[in-house]
């Protein structure tokens, strides 16, 4: 109790013991800041390493030395790499993502719009896919190695084996072109009514659900099956619980941790990895936005997109870990 550093470490220890979850969250948040910084350096370096800079790629075949020099000096591309990086970082720390070099519009504004679209699509896909996958997973455990289990497996594995653009084209061909019952293209825009938006995203949502379903379903099935052989499940069966009830009430809660992890992984994919689906359905999301920006080396936009994608991944993974701890009483109340 005499020297301050000891007290600090003692209190720190206590804080950690008393609020293990909070400590973990704070620790993770600090770590994710470092990670984001590292990601921004990597993206900056990556775009720098690509052949050609913004001036030459933006002007493309019509670049003249004079025009290239004009753009370079206007955007300060003639300064050293390190200076430019810290300039950009300085802006971001103050919440300013800068303006797009190509369109000269505010990056935050454009990203806000596109991110909203991406989250809208991902949100609805998740809303359908997650309960469906977990439900189907439990169903196939219940009927394990029997006909319903096999059918669920075959269909979901077939869906995951087909490339996503192919599923997209099939859905467009049948539901938009042949039967004419679905809206295509799925372009959403400002001022569109909520119902119209829902109609527009029906086909891309269906595609995404088919793509992510199998992964989550298979993990649910595997995780619950591994619990099914535990002694307490035998007890549940012996005390006369119905098979279905035993799965939902006793097996599933104990298999949650791996399921949560897979769900988080798939959610992250739904937000950041759907550029192909966006292109096929002409959906204005983040993926297409970032690809457009990379094509012309529009650094402020690439950086902003990269940071958001990284943040989504980090956040969802953190959420998965926290939920896994909450779901496990042994981790929730450490000794």
């Amino acid at each position, binding site marked *: 109790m005499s020297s301050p550093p000891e007290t600090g470490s003692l209190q720190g220890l206590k804080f950690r013991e008393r609020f293990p979850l909070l400590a973990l969250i704070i620790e993770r948040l600090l770590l994710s800041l470092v990670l984001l910084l590292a990601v921004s350096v990597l993206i900056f370096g990556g775009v720098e390493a690509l052949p050609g800079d913004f001036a030459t790629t933006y002007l493309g075949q019509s670049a003249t030395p004079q025009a290239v020099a004009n753009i370079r000096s206007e955007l300060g591309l003639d300064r050293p790499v390190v200076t430019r990086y810290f300039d950009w970082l300085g802006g971001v720390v103050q919440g300013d993502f800068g303006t797009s070099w190509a369109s000269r519009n505010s990056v935050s504004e454009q990203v806000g*719009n596109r991110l909203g679209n991406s989250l809208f699509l991902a949100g609805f896909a998740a809303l359908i896919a997650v309960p469906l996958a977990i439900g189907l997973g439990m169903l196939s455990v219940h009927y394990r190695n029997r006909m319903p289990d096999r059918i669920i497996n075959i269909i979901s594995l077939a869906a995951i084996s087909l490339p996503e653009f192919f599923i997209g084209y099939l859905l467009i061909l049948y539901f938009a072109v042949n039967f004419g019952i679905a*809206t295509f*293209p799925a372009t959403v825009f400002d001022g569109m009514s909520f119902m119209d938006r829902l109609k527009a995203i029906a086909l891309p949502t269906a595609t995404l659900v088919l793509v992510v379903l199998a992964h989550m379903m298979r993990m649910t099935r595997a995780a619950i099956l591994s619990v099914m052989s535990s002694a307490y499940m035998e007890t549940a069966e012996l005390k006369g619980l119905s098979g279905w009830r035993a799965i939902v009430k006793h097996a599933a809660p104990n298999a949650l941790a791996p399921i949560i992890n897979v769900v988080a992984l798939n959610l992250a994919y739904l937000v950041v990895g759907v550029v192909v689906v966006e292109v096929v359905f*002409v959906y204005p999301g983040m993926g297409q936005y970032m690809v457009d920006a990379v094509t012309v080396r529009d650094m402020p936009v690439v950086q902003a997109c990269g940071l958001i994608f990284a943040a989504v991944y980090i956040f969802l993974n953190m959420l998965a870990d926290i939920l896994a701890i909450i779901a496990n009483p042994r981790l929730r109340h450490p000794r």
Partner: protein
Amino acid sequence: MNDFTKYLAGRVTAGGLSRREFMGRAMTAGMTLTAASHLFAISAAAQTPKKGGHIKLGLEGGAATDSIDPAKATSQVMFCAVRTWGDTLVETHPETRAPIPSLAESWSPSPDAVVWTFKIRKGVQFHDGKEMTTDDVVATLKRHSDEKAESGALGVMKSIKSIENKGGDLVVTLESGNADLPQIFTDYHLVIQPNGGVDDPTAGVGTGPYKVTSFQPGVRMTFERHANDWRSDRGFADTVEFITMNDGTARVAALSSGQVHYINRVDPKTVALLKRAPNVEILTTSGGGHYVFIMHCDTAPFDNNDLRLALKYAINREEMVQRILGGYGKVGNDFPINDTYALFPEGIEQRQYDPDKAAFHYKKSGHSGSILLRTSEVAFPGAVDASALFQQSAKKAGIDIEIRREPGDGYWTNVWNKQPFSASYWGSRATQDQFYSGAYLSTADWNDTRFKRPDFDKLLIAARSELDEAKRKDMYRQMAIMVRDEGGVILPMFNDYVNASTKQVKGYVNDIGNDMSNGYVATRIWLDA
């Protein structure tokens, strides 16, 4: 009936021209009053444009990086957008590509073609309600001549010394004579904006048939008809919508399901399939764009004209048009001009695939070993396949071409105009002079074949200020033959513009000026119920 009155009659049929305008123009073209009014009646009865409705276009070639500033319009979508909301001083005739009036009513050059006077149309209103003045015109042209504006038209504006408003007329003084100045003013970047767009380049305010109502780069753009538009032969639908659709399959699906009325860039390989769709019309127009293999005339082994000739004889042009363009194109003749240009020199012998001649010149060149050709999917659609076809046809002449496939990303920075032998493409330019000045003049930035001949340069400059068309045409013939027989370009094919619409769309004008009815598609078509 001459070509011009034929064209006018066509525009009446297409719904483009009022009786008064038609009579006025037909009679200036030398028709009698009765003949003109008779012709109008026939043409007008054929089809009357229907007003109203909402036209949706699904277009390839837009990105989140698009800017609505016409100085920076480069993508296909923005090109078409600028043509929809803005007007240039001069337009081109859809069939002959001769300059015809738009915001400039008439023009006249000084005898040496150095000083040009343009009469500016009166009573034209901008979308914001202000009347367009000659000062707006002057400010627009000055902005595009300023290097700071980074305008895509800077190259063609370089030759202008001064731009002035003299008593309401636009007076342009050039560094040296240029008979093509009116065609330069058809450049789509040069749409007239209030005060030249200096105050707000991205306002999207112009004098076109449609005003911009919303713009989301790379996604969607909407327009509504400008009620006080100065003409009656354009802009029939109430509203227009552009949707950027960069995926070819998505465009075809959207068109065949009737969700859009018009799409651009139909893949020639799928045209035959799309034709089967009951409600779809394929629209093809010849154009001046072309696909090329370029050799640097100043780099070994291509500094030897026999080797260049050997390679020119070793390419099978017909096969390329069939296999790469699906038949939607014309064979090239190793010079960058075809009959979509005014003053095209007809009758130059077509170069054929001739393995014997190729072998003869190859032997004479004394070259041995393989020749490295760099190619990429971005060089032009089907460039990798075309390179393979070239390799096969050259093999029969005993020439060994080695193909290196380069990454598409950075191709224009690191390969094109840098490496001595590569695949590439060129779009059309307004005039022969513009094309040759941009890519064949010794000092041109984009002289991608390193073709440097003082006699060619001299001819080009002389032809530029020649107001006598017959003399000028002869000069262009000499230049074409020089490029064909001694240049570094192997030009197997000119690609057609292949677009498609639903059968509901009427009034489409096949305009040889550029793709998508020279960008005017949205303003020229109407929907037949």
